[in-house]
């Protein structure tokens, strides 16, 4: 029976967007079932379960909050996981609790009632009012997490893959919220497990302001490119959908974010030997990338010379906590201006690496690459005419420059004055993109490859 339920659970999980083990061979390695959040009379019964899935010998812990019913309720078929034989309550029907309004109410009740049952704790940064009467809504389009809008103005971001210790998204949001930073959506609280078996605890979810008026920066930028391409031959600065003013303001916001991160969290200084080590790391990543994508080979020497320049740079570089995975998709345009989201860093990297100090120029490089992508993503690269190519480049250049202008004006430090570092980080990012596209979207490989060509040439 247990094996049957586990098979059903694995089947359900592997269909979800947040499941990281797609394409691999997976099995369930264990389930930690936290105590019930509900009483015996409640329906559904709700608890958080931590499911370890082993994919190709690599274990990964997933959070699956569960709602159990005695009988199948209507309208919840899409969240059905399977049937589970509970030792005490008998046969129950299990659902993904994040699709169940009643169960969600149970999961968030602890924010207002200071309820500490169920093996999880709710923490708040100040009083919060969670409107449990108003139905929550699940945001679409998210990859690795599940986000729910609670009431009118709160967002609950539930981490699906969890690791022991402090989640960097919560850590950074908390520090910036205490600083009253305007570059983020303020943190209101978080949910964590109690130490499991007197060992590690896991951060499960964070509660932050929901920015109702927001729209996605990536789509907003692409709308500008689309607008440009609908005109036969106007320049990027001539069309109505010109994005440069927005790019400039976004640059100012990222600069303010970096100032806030430096003020709120630790900073350090890299000396020449740190830069040499950085160059070594980047070189070895490049070597791996060339191995994975031979298309990079013709440029490898020129690219490596950029790292040589970095290694011999006789200067110091201020380092601090950075976003770590900054691109247009991590930006929101709100009525009040731009806001930056998702401080988890690159999810594929180990926690220590995601929390490591780095130069803010790395974030800047990420944004510059993102403008390039936004520009190119409207046309399949292999079908791009020279005219389109020219106009798209013009858009990207215009907005990259506007972004850097806004950043420089706010921070008083122009990233273009750190040309060696900026180029090194751009190359690193673009090489990673080439590998990613080769594996996932071969027709798109031209986007980062043309950037590589440009970066190798300078």
């Amino acid at each position: 029976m247990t094996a049957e339920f586990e098979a059903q659970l694995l089947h359900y999980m592997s269909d979800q967007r947040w499941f990281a083990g797609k394409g691999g061979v997976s099995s369930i390695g264990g389930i930690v079932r936290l105590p019930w959040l509900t009483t015996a009379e409640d329906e559904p019964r709700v608890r958080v379960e931590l499911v370890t899935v082993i994919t190709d010998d690599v274990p990964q812990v997933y959070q699956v909050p569960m709602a159990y019913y005695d009988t199948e309720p209507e309208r919840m078929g899409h969240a059905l996981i399977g049937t589970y034989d509970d030792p005490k309550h008998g046969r129950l029907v299990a659902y993904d609790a994040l699709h169940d309004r009643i169960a969600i109410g149970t999961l968030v009740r602890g924010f207002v009632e200071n309820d500490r049952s169920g093996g999880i704790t709710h923490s708040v940064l100040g009083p919060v009012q969670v409107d449990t009467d108003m139905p929550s809504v699940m945001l679409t389009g998210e990859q690795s997490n599940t986000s729910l809008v609670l009431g009118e103005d709160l967002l609950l971001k539930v981490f699906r893959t969890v690791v022991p210790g402090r989640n960097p998204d919560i850590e950074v949001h908390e520090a910036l919220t205490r600083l009253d930073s305007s570059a983020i959506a303020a943190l209101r609280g978080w949910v964590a497990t109690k130490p499991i078996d007197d060992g590690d605890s896991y951060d499960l979810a964070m509660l932050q302001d929901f920015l109702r008026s927001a729209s996605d920066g990536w789509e907003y930028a692409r709308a500008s490119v689309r607008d440009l391409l609908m005109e036969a031959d106007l320049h990027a600065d001539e069309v109505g959908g010109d994005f440069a003013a927005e790019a400039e303001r976004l640059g100012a916001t990222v600069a303010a974010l970096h100032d806030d991160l430096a003020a709120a969290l630790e900073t350090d200084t890299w000396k020449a030997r740190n830069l040499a080590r950085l160059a070594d790391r980047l070189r070895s990543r490049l070597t791996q990338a060339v191995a994975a994508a031979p298309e990079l080979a013709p440029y490898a020497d020129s690219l490596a010379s950029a790292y040589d320049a970095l290694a011999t740079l006789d200067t110091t570089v201020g380092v601090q906590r950075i976003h770590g995975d900054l691109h247009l998709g991590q930006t929101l345009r709100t009525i009040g201006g731009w806001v930056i989201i998702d401080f988890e860093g690159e999810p594929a990297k180990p926690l220590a690496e995601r929390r490591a100090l780095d130069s803010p120029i790395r974030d800047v490089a990420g944004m510059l690459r993102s403008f390039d992508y936004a520009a190119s993503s409207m046309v399949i690269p292999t079908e791009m005419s020279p005219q389109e190519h020219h106009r798209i480049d013009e858009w990207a250049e215009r907005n990259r420059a506007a972004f850097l202008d806004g950043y420089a004006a706010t921070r008083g430090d122009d990233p273009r004055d750190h040309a060696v570092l900026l180029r090194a980080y751009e190359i690193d990012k673009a090489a990673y993109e080439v590998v990613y596209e080769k594996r996932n979207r071969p027709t798109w490989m031209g986007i980062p490859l043309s950037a590589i060509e440009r970066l190798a040439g300078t």
Partner: protein
Amino acid sequence: MSEIAQPISHESDDPNWFKRAVFYEVLIRSFKDSSGDGVGDLRGLAERLDYLAWLGVDCLWLPPFFPSPLRDGGYDVSDYTDVAEDIGTIDDFKAFLDAAHSRGIRVIIDFVMNHTSDQHPWFQSSRTDPDGPYGDFYVWSDTDDLYQDARIIFVDTEASNWTWDPVRGEYFWHRFYSHQPDLNFDNPAVHEAMLDALAFWLDLGVDGFRLDAVPYLFEREGTNGENLPETHEFLRKVRKFVDDGWPGRVLLAEANQWPADVVDYYGDFDTGGDECHMCFHFPVMPRIFMAVRRESRYPISEILSQTPDIPKNCHWGIFLRNHDELTLEMVTDEDRDYMWAEYAKDPRMKANIGIRRRLAPLLDNDVDQMELFTALLLSLPGSPVLYYGDEIGMGDNIWLGDRDGVRTPMQWTPDRNAGFSSATPGRLTLPVIMDPVFGYQAVNVEADLANTSSLLHWTRRMIQIRQQHPALGLGTFTDIGGSNPAVLSFLREFGDDAMLCVNNLSRFAQPVELDLRSFEGVRPIETLGGVEFPAIGELPYLLTLGGYGFYWFRLPKNPEASGP
């Protein structure tokens, strides 16, 4: 299907009538000439009241029609209590006012307090007889040194706010043209003269005043001479005077300032406002143009989110175009924001930067855009002020110069002089529009009346819907964002009346997903056609809109009531 709200009553005694009213600015000289002398007049305007009543406007705003040398479009008044000879007589005005009121149309008139014409007998007396009764009616000085912190508003024509008067041998103060000396509001006799003039028109029955150029009434050394406490004190005095003698009349301030400063002209928040009932919201208009140009809702959303709350008995006035040029400098002076840079960056908008053009030519005569703009005007918070001729998509004449290009005769018919006047065409004070696109043969009321799909019929229908829905006049405003930055979506709610307005600011078709959880189960009803849309469910509500498309949905509070 039943409409849920009663139409607005024109005879209403509601002192807040102006919150639901649709205003219509009409230039008497350009509307209808009854005498055949080539100048529009009060009798002509009275003849066309049936048209205005049919259109559905609630209140007319008449720019100055007082005796004037007309060096500033009549804003240079030489007699506050008479009618300019070419426009008619006081008896004509009374007859017009009675005729308007009998149709349920109110009338507010312009009133210029800050200054008079230099031809006004007060000024002539003041300069020749410094010790006489009007000697202290204006701001005189031996030198031109005082008040150097006050900016010069008409920088193109004026070098100083002081001008030497050789007759009196002193300098006089003027914030605008040098032929418009500022009245001296430190002189109580000036207050009395102003209140007497207001009383004259209130006794005749006018429903209120648009107060021209109110921020500049007083001068104080070391200040910029704008928004001074003394000015507010005087406005409170005016308000009390009007309220005490003629309750229900309205004061509409022209304070071309940033909203955070304009709100001061409403007066005391706790008492619901004790200065002006209404103020124009100047920045929202250029932001609408910018938002559509940028295909982004943020220019509009931002300015509305930055607009402070106003006292409860007060209301904004909003407009797309009016008789004035609207210089962006005046909007952005206080603004840390990016609007000026936006316009300056954009050669095409820069060509229109004065926005001294009519709506239709500004929008390339695109009916879809004109409808979208009008829908925004009629649904954003504030009372809409239409400009005569825009309801038929009239054009302008840029060859007449900035001032007169948008003041050409109303185009009634395809006949001689557009049906405006029987005079010899050469006698018209301003020529009718004759270009191939906007000429009166193509664009006129007669043709639009005959064509039920015309902009005119459409505008009338939209005004009707607005009047059926108190939410659009009185309701709260909630920007609900949505997944698509090219789509501006907002709720207007008043009691049981809830309206959802969704506007596609882009020329292309757009989808948008709206978070409408608080209306789950409600079936939105599109108000132009009465079509019921699918019920709002748990998931974000998906709508698609054509280029420049928009919806006005009614959200009935009781879902069952609208079911089959």
